């Protein structure tokens, strides 16, 4: 598989380590009243779709950046990749 790294271009997936659903970037508020339940959902439950999936890949053998990759889990077609830190910062801006 080839991952379209936003800075480095196409890189072989072997250079990366896969984590999972990009929702793992949305860590719940530890101070919320139902924090434990929210954390359990966050840590354990997954949509696990057969189709388009946003997921986290870590360029461990390269520039050590985390990427959010949009990929179809049925065809393996990759629709795009962004720097995870950009996505995380944008999310923060959005929720301000």
């Amino acid at each position, binding site marked *: *598989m*080839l991952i379209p790294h936003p800075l480095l271009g196409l890189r072989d997936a072997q250079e990366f*380590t896969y*984590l999972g659903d990009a929702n*793992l*970037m949305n*860590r719940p508020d*530890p*101070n919320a009243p139902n*924090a*434990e339940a929210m*954390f*359990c959902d966050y*840590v354990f439950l997954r949509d696990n779709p057969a189709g388009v999936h946003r997921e*986290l890949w*870590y360029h*461990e053998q390269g520039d*050590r*950046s*985390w990427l959010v990759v949009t990929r179809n889990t049925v*065809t*393996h*077609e*990759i629709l795009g990749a962004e*720097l*995870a*830190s950009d996505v*995380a*910062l944008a999310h*923060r801006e959005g929720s301000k």
Partner: protein
Amino acid sequence: MTRLSGGLIDRNTSFSFTFDGKTYTGHQGDTLASALLANGVRLMGRSFKYHRPRGVVAAGSEEPNAMVELRSGARTEPNTRATVAELYDGLVAKSQNRIGSLAFDALGVNDYFAPFFAAGFYYKTFMWPRAFWEKLYEPMIRRAAGLGSLSMQADPDSYDKGFLHCDVLVVGAGAAGLAAALASARAGAQVILCDEDFRLGGRLMTESHRLDGAPATDWISSLEAEFETFPNLRIMRRTTVFGVYDHGIYGAVERVSDHAAEPGDKVRQTLWRITAKRAILAAGATERHIPFADNDRPGVMLGAAMRAYANRWAVVPTKSAKDPIAIFTNNDDGHRTALDLMSKNVPILGVIDSRENAPRFGEYDLFAGSMVTGTKGRLGLKEIEITKGGTASWHRCAALGVSGGWNPNVHLASHHRGRPVWDDTLLSFVPGADGPAGLIPAGACAGLGSTAKALADGAKAARTALSELGMKAPDIALPDAEDMPVSQADFWHVPGKKRAWVDFQNDVTVKDIVLAHKENMKPVEHLKRWTTLGMATDQGKTSNVSALAVMAELTGKSIPQTGTTIFRPPYTGVSLSVLGGGDTGVNFRPRRLTPTHTWAKSQGAEFVEVGQWMRAQYFPQAGETDWRESVDREAKAVRKDVGLCDVTTLGKVDVQGADVGEFLNRMYSNMMGTVAVGKVRYGLMLREDGFAYDDGTCARLGEDHYVVTTTTANAGLVYRNMEFARQCLWPELDVQLISTTDAWAQIAIAGPKSRLLLERVVDEFDLSNDAFPFMGCAKLTVCKGLRARLFRISFSGELAYEVAVPARYGNALMARLMELGSDLGATPYGTEALGVLRIEKGHAAGAELNGQTTAAMLGLGRMVSVKKDSIGAVMSRREGLASDARRLVGLLPVGSTERLMAGSHLFAQGAAQTTETDQGWVTSACYSPHVGGYIGLGYLENGDTRMNEEIIAANPVEGSEMRLRVVPAHFVDPEGERLRD
């Protein structure tokens, strides 16, 4: 003599080869199959189940019968198709799957018991008596199974891997492929042309069609000459593209030296990973046969294969070139075999065509509306029975070419699970529209099988591929070629009572398909698995579609409704060696060497694998005969004098930034942000699910600067998790990280005399206890100006330091320390002594911190701060974790000097020993020279409240049991005074 005139063989060469011990000769350009046929040898193998005598059926990699063991000794290659084994001088081959000789195979008796071996018979029996399955039935089945044998010796050849990138990959160098490669190369694209054969041309070499009125080989030669002029075209002969993977990546195997007696200094094969922007699948088509009674005798082969042997290899599959040959066909194409053979003066009995209105193409006897309904000649065809209407007659016949139509080689187009589609005119499957992205089928592979159409389609595919890449394709002039339409009948097999073979290799007949239907194994996948049809080494290339046709007939459905099975890589078999045998043996994985490796080696250290690292395990001295002697001595030296140990492998991360304290607070369960500059704190890391997974230290070298350590095993994981937190969870924090594990050599200097030794290397640094107490850190220089870092931390429980210098100085520093400490009794110690020392102090390591334990179990519950959040804090408080009552304790054997074994389970005294009464296990154990006996650590239910209780350590897997006393997990200096000295 069965050699004809012409052919693409070099009669000036003479190769000697042996088959089953007999010696023959052949020529350059022959395959083992063609050379055997040239020597009148038709019997080449025995079938899997019935051990029927078999000859060659095809002329290429689709061959199901002629499987031989090629070569001998450690290079023995079982299940090699004689049809693709290039002949070389000294080739040695043996037939397979027989007891006795090929002609007198003792297991030939199986054929007489054939009714008992119907499809699926083994599922219905061999169940009684029970004991007989393991002892008798299964060993019998296993001995009968498989075809060839491995030599059981290690493969002595070398293999390689390569990576290629191109604009256009052309798979197949037949008419379509050559046209496509020519057009793409002339357009200036980067092109790779692959063909599994050793010559370019595909079926242009095996048919007698002329191009521009001249032999096809003329055109191929002119192309090859032009190809030489293109720097942007790479031609790969003997290279099979075996699989299509994601994103335009193709797997291919190049047989670099399989056609030589020995590879010499070359590799035997190379695995290529080809990344292509576009690919043209010009893989051609494979002919199918027609099942009829006893259709599997040596001498019965595919019609196009017969033409191939006659045209390319100048040989006929009979005993003599004067013996009559017949053709059995359901389409126009089959007649070509008769014409080609007649042009070489081979006598033709006639063409038996199933169609009533069969056209005539030449001066031979035409048996229209007829079928072949039987054969005679167990070891080689002698007679055939021709039936028309109700009348049958026997005819002398030495070889029979069978032509049942063509199956486009759709395989690679279906590797991404796209299904091929049925074409009612062609009566075959063609690639569907949902193939792998970027792959364009062309020529016979796409159902365009006449020579002219294949050439044109190849050029067209190239134009499509190039335009998609934004390149202009030149018009290329293609030679004039035949474009005869081929009409064929919807005729799939000859009905009858006797066995008619569909899958030759696995001995599956029409009767087996009928039985499967009767037993309701009708879906094509059930049919396949019940009968094993299509599951042999040829993967049903010549038989699958005919089998579908038979099942379709039985169910009353159409062939497309019956479906196909899935096409999967590899297209043809790929040796396991080329897939994984490149870097092997001791080169299977890299060796990571510590900075002091050279010095340790010079001291005669024994090394041990720790992940990919090689670490010094212990340093045996003269006179020591057992590792225990060395390890006991090293451990004692540390607690008495001073020891030196390379601890570089423990992970190190440099963390800097304005928010570094806050960041580390969130990463560690305990407070890290409050560490003062110049201090070090021990830390525990939890996973987000609340379980402990690593421990280490954080040393604050500056306001914005920490150096963090991890365990050796988790160095990569901790770093990854820190980057995840930094980039994905808290990108707003001002924090930067870098892994420095390999950048700094780190040496532990431990023991009562460690300060004395260290004073001799540091440059003007106050090491007194007041100035530099326990858990301090500093930047300094050593050895007169070498920059270094110093940490007063202790894994051994002694007064100890760790000094870090840039890695390239580690070796020299170790040598210097040893030299300067010789009067102090400085002793190098390895991982074994390191282990003894930490067990004596009850420090957790991998066996205790194994990802299944909590902070509370480790006795570190108070290290999970309730004052701030950190990864894992919230979930660490869940019911299941909080209720786990197992605690880390020390364990001392009672009344035994036997070795205490880690992995023993703990039980209360007198308790029955079951899963339900299991109370824990021994995590680590060693001999302690300081305690004078074995000691251990372990997790025990409520262990913290059971001090001094006697329990049992049970080790039934090694047949031992021991009484233990539960003690606190500090065996030496329990108050920890020596650390703070």
